[in-house]
């Protein structure tokens, strides 16, 4: 019993002491909770080391006690490296007025229990990793003056009850993921001075009610999704100094009321959809220091900014639709303007001389406008100018030498103008000049040696001018040069060896000039070089072996020069992505070292004298997309390892001496768009697997020794545009699956041994346009009338086959047809009437064709009738026979003469007679590579019959004679 009483007594005292602690404040209770909070925190730096029950709580780090030492009123642990979550137990520190946990690594959500800290005046939790929603209980903190919880991962909407925090002066919610709208209740915050909502996903309009924040000095809501108009009521925020609404979707015009914000120093409306004129009322903002209205749709002239905007330092109006010229009262000598950005507008007129009054200008950007006329010599007045950007205008005339006096100049962009004349030597005085971009102008003369005195130069771009003469020999003085582009000028002479001393060079582009000589050995010092481009010059000789030391090279384009020797010196780098040596005289094999560049995507070695075979190392080039080895002397079989290069899109191996079968693994290259194996010694069949290359657009296997049938799988190449199988030994029929190749616009199957009839399905290939060439095969049967559907076809050659029957009248509908050859078949009957426009040669040597341009069919028939009638006609026939025999003999004589002359002509390989026909013959082969190892392949000489043929066609014997003649000629030529 007694013990129970004792227990009751103890409990009573315990409760009493607790009640007393709450009522009067007892820092021993605070210490209890603080130690508990400490135990839950990760404190790597040890800022909480002296938080211990053995020391007085008022001496603990980060704590502020009340004057009477009874209450903890402040807790500031900003930037202490703390992590963990914010404990709900903070809510027991009921006397707290300031809680600052900013700049730590707290995660988790903000505990809603913080709403119990009724004495809290400042809550600073910014720059942590807090997530979740902002607890509405925060809005119960009636005394709160500063709430900064931005730069966290807080999401959700801003609660309207935020309007309850009547004492709030600072509200920082920037850099979170808040969405929804800005609550209208924010207007209740009559004491609010700073409102920062930047970098969230806030949408909807800016509430009119914001005008209630009469004390607001700083309002930043940039980088949100705010839309609608800027409320005119914002003009009532008379205390506003900073207004930043950049990068939203605000539309409408800029309210003139903003002109009433007489304290405004910073106005940023960049990156919205504001339109209309810039209100002249903004001129009243005489405190304004920075104005950025860039990247909107503002139009009209720049009608503001006169002498009133005395404080303005930065003016950015770039990327709008502003027109007109710059107003005359734009600048005064007392101006403090430092930066003027008016780029990407439609401003016009001559260079605005008004600007020259603002001697304070450091950066001037007038690029991408419509300014014209000369650059004024008075530019030198802008003595503080560091950056002058006048590119993409229509400035003309010469560069004023006075630019050389702009001693602060670092950046000079004049590209894409129409500036003429020389570079003034005075530019050599610009010791701070770092970037000079003069490309796409009409500058001429030589590049002045004085320019190499500009010791700070790191970037030179003179691309696309008319500079002549040589590259200054002293260029090596530019030891800071990183980027040198002299492409597309008329520079000549050798590369000065001193260029090798520009050791920081990253990009060197001398392409499209008339430079000559060999590369200087000093280039071995260019160890930072990544892009090296010399194409279209007259460089020659072997490469210095020391180029192998350039280990960072990524892009090399030496195409169209006369370099010779091995390509090995260019393969020192493991980082090559593009190597283009097309059209040089490089010889020897491709070194296996090339395979070290695992990221090589484009390899172009065409038109060289390279030998050897494609080695197995090629299989390591897994990124290779473009492989062009054409027009070399490569031999052997194509290495099967190449099948590992699954990204290959272009494989051009034509005009070499490759042997063996066409590898069927080519069918595994799913991205292949172009395959050219023509003019090699491939034999065997066309592999059916090629039908798997469904993206193939161009397939050229012509001029090999391929035999067998065309596999029906070719019909799977449904993207194919061009198919060339000419001059092989292919036999069998054209597979009917060809009709699936609906995108074919060029089909060449000539000079094979294809048999059977021309499949009528070819008539469904209505995209056929360039040519359908089936000539010189063994096709028989009739011409399918479906070919009349090829409405876009411009050339049709089915000559030298064994086609019979009549020419289908449907072919007369081929209105696009420009070249037609039906000759040397067994066709008969009437030609479609529209064929009259084609030359006789299109129809020669058939059985019995008639109708224009040949003899009319009625005459033909008429002759037969009359022979049956009277004897008088018989005399005429005798006469006809007589004359035609005579003519025939004459012709025979002429033929023999011509044949003899012609043989001479052929030997001289020039044609003096029958040029017109010859041109036509050439046309048939248009698009083919007729040059094969220097030898000119003349395919058909038969048509070189003198034009007298017309009158002699009437006699069948003569035709036979001619045919015989031509055939013998042919055999001698092949």
């Amino acid at each position, binding site marked *: 019993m007694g013990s129970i009483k004792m227990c009751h007594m103890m409990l009573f005292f315990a409760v009493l002491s607790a009640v007393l602690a709450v009522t009067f404040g007892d820092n021993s209770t605070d210490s209890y909770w603080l130690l508990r909070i400490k135990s839950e925190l990760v404190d790597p730096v040890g800022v909480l080391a002296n938080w211990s029950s053995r020391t007085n709580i008022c001496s603990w780090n980060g704590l502020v006690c009340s004057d009477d030492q009874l209450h903890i009123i402040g807790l500031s642990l900003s930037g202490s490296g703390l992590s963990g979550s914010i404990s709900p137990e903070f809510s027991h520190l009921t006397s707290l007025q300031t809680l600052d946990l900013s700049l730590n690594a707290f995660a988790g959500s903000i505990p809603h229990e913080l709403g119990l800290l009724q004495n809290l005046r400042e809550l600073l939790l910014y720059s942590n990793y807090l997530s979740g929603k902002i607890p509405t209980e925060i809005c119960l903190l009636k005394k709160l003056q500063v709430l900064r919880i931005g730069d966290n991962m807080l999401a959700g909407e801003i609660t309207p009850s935020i309007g309850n925090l009547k004492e709030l002066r600072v509200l920082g919610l920037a850099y979170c993921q808040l969405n929804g709208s800005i609550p209208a209740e924010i207007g209740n915050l009559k004491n609010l001075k700073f409102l920062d909502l930047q970098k969230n996903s806030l949408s909807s309009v800016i509430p009119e009610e914001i005008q209630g924040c009469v004390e607001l000095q700083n309002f930043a809501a940039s980088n949100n999704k705010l839309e609608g108009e800027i409320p005119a009521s914002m003009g009532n925020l008379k205390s506003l100094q900073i207004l930043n609404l950049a990068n939203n979707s605000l539309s409408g015009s800029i309210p003139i009321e903003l002109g009433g914000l007489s304290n405004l120093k910073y106005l940023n409306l960049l990156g919205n959809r504001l339109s209309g004129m810039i209100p002249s009322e903004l001129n009243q903002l005489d405190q304004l220091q920075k104005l950025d209205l860039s990247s909107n749709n503002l139009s009209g002239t720049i009608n503001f900014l006169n002498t009133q905007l005395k404080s303005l330092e930065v003016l950015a109006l770039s990327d709008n639709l502003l027109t007109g010229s710059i107003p005359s009262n734009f600048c005064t000598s007392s101006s403090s303007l430092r930066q003027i950005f008016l780029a990407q507008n439609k401003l016009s007129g001559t260079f605005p001389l008004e600007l020259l009054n603002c001697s304070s200008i450091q950066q001037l950007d007038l690029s991408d406008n419509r300014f014209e006329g000369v650059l004024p010599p008075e530019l030198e007045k802008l003595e503080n100018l560091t950056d002058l950007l006048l590119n993409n205008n229509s400035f003309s005339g010469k560069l004023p030498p006075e630019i050389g006096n702009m001693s602060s100049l670092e950046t000079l962009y004049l590209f894409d103008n129409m500036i003429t004349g020389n570079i003034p030597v005075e530019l050599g005085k610009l010791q701070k000049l770092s970037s000079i971009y003069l490309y*796409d102008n009409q500058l001429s003369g030589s590049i002045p040696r004085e320019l190499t005195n500009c010791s700070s130069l790191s970037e030179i771009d003179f*691309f*696309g001018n008319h500079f002549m003469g040589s590259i200054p020999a002293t260029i090596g003085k530019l030891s800071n040069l990183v980027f040198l582009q002299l*492409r*597309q000028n008329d520079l000549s002479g050798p590369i000065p060896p001193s260029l090798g001393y520009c050791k920081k060079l990253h990009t060197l582009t001398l*392409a*499209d000039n008339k430079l000559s000589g060999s590369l200087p050995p000093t280039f071995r010092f260019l160890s930072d070089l990544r892009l090296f481009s010399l*194409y279209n010059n007259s460089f020659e000789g072997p490469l210095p072996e020391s180029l192998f030391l350039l280990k960072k090279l990524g892009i090399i*384009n030496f195409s169209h020069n006369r370099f010779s020797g091995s390509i090995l010196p260019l393969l020192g780098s493991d980082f090559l992505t593009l190597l*283009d040596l097309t059209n040089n005289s490089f010889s020897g094999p491709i070194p296996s070292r090339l395979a070290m560049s695992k990221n090589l995507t484009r390899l172009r070695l065409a038109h060289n004298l390279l030998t050897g075979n494609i080695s197995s190392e090629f299989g390591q080039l897994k990124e290779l997309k*473009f492989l062009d080895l054409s027009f070399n002397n490569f031999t052997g079989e194509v290495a099967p390892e190449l099948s590992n290069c699954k990204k290959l*899109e*272009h494989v051009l191996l034509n005009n070499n001496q490759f042997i063996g079968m066409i590898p069927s693994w080519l069918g595994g290259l799913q991205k292949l*768009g*172009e395959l050219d194996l023509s003019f090699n010694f491939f034999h065997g069949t066309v592999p059916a697997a090629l039908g798997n290359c469904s993206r193939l*657009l161009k397939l050229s296997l012509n001029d090999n020794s391929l035999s067998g049938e065309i596999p029906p799988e070719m019909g799977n190449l449904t993207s194919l*545009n061009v198919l060339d199988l000419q001059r092989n030994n292919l036999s069998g029929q054209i597979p009917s699956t060809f009709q699936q190749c609906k*995108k074919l*616009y060029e089909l060449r199957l000539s000079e094979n041994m294809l048999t059977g009839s021309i499949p009528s399905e070819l008539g469904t290939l209505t*995209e056929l*346009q360039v040519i359908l060439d089936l000539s010189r095969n063994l096709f028989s049967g009739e011409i399918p009338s479906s070919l009349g559907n090829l409405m*876009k076809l411009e050339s049709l050659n089915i000559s030298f086959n064994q086609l019979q029957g009549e020419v289908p009248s449907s072919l007369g509908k081929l*209105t*696009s047809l*420009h070249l037609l050859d039906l000759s040397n078949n067994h066709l008969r009957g009437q030609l479609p009437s529209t064929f009259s426009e084609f*030359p006789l040669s299109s129809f020669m040597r058939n059985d019995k064709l008639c109708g224009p341009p040949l003899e009319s069919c009625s005459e033909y028939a008429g002759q037969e009738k009359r022979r049956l009638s009277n004897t008088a006609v018989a005399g005429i026939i005798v006469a006809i026979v007589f004359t035609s025999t005579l003519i025939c003999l004459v012709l025979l004589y002429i033929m023999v003469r011509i044949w003899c002359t012609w043989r001479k002509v052929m030997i001289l390989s020039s044609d003096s007679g029958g040029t*017109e026909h010859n*041109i*036509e013959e050439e*046309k048939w082969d248009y698009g083919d590579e007729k040059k094969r190892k220097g030898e000119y392949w003349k395919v058909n000489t038969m048509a070189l019959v003198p034009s007298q043929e017309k009158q002699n066609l009437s006699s069948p014997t003569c035709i036979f004679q001619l045919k015989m003649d031509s055939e013998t000629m042919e055999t001698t030529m092949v």
Partner: protein
Amino acid sequence: MAIWAQYHLLALFLLTWASAVPTNANMEGDALYALRRAVEDPEHVLQSWDPTLVDPCTWFHVTCDSDNRVTRLDLGNAKLSGNLVPELGKLERLQYLELYMNNLVGPIPVQLGGLKNLVSLDLFHNNLTGSIPPSLSKLSNLRFLRLNSNRLSGTIPRELTKLGSLKILDVSNNDLCGTIPTTGSFSKFSEESFMNNPRLEGPELMGFVRYDTRGGCK
């Protein structure tokens, strides 16, 4: 035959002309790339169009001549949508502009009149609007002009009758108005070339009735 002689003269002229005026490095690539930017390409047929290359000659669907100048653009039936771009007019050696059967919208750029070597302009089966630019009459080598099945409006520019080489004209299935020119190269075209243009008023009768090219066009 005479045609070939003309072609050779033309080729000769072009060669001398081209060597006199240097071309911008990748101007043609830039022009084509402008097209790539302007269109939606759901089938990625323009994927290989890399603007950083020296020229566009290795891009798929682009064909160049031996001087690395673009002669063909083959993008028929490629499911492209979007606008044609004026930059296409810079492809001075272009002979074949094949953009038929896509979903191209907007007008035919006036600048296409600058394609002096164009042989074939195939824009049929698209959704092109606006009028046929009279500047196309400058395409003196044009043989095939197929603009059928679009939504082109306005009159058929009479200047097109100057196209002496024109073999095929198809402007059927549009919304053209006015009368059909009958002179020059138009004398050989049949009604089929013009059908299904409800507001088109038939061939103009020269010197017979009131001459009015704007009939049916408000």
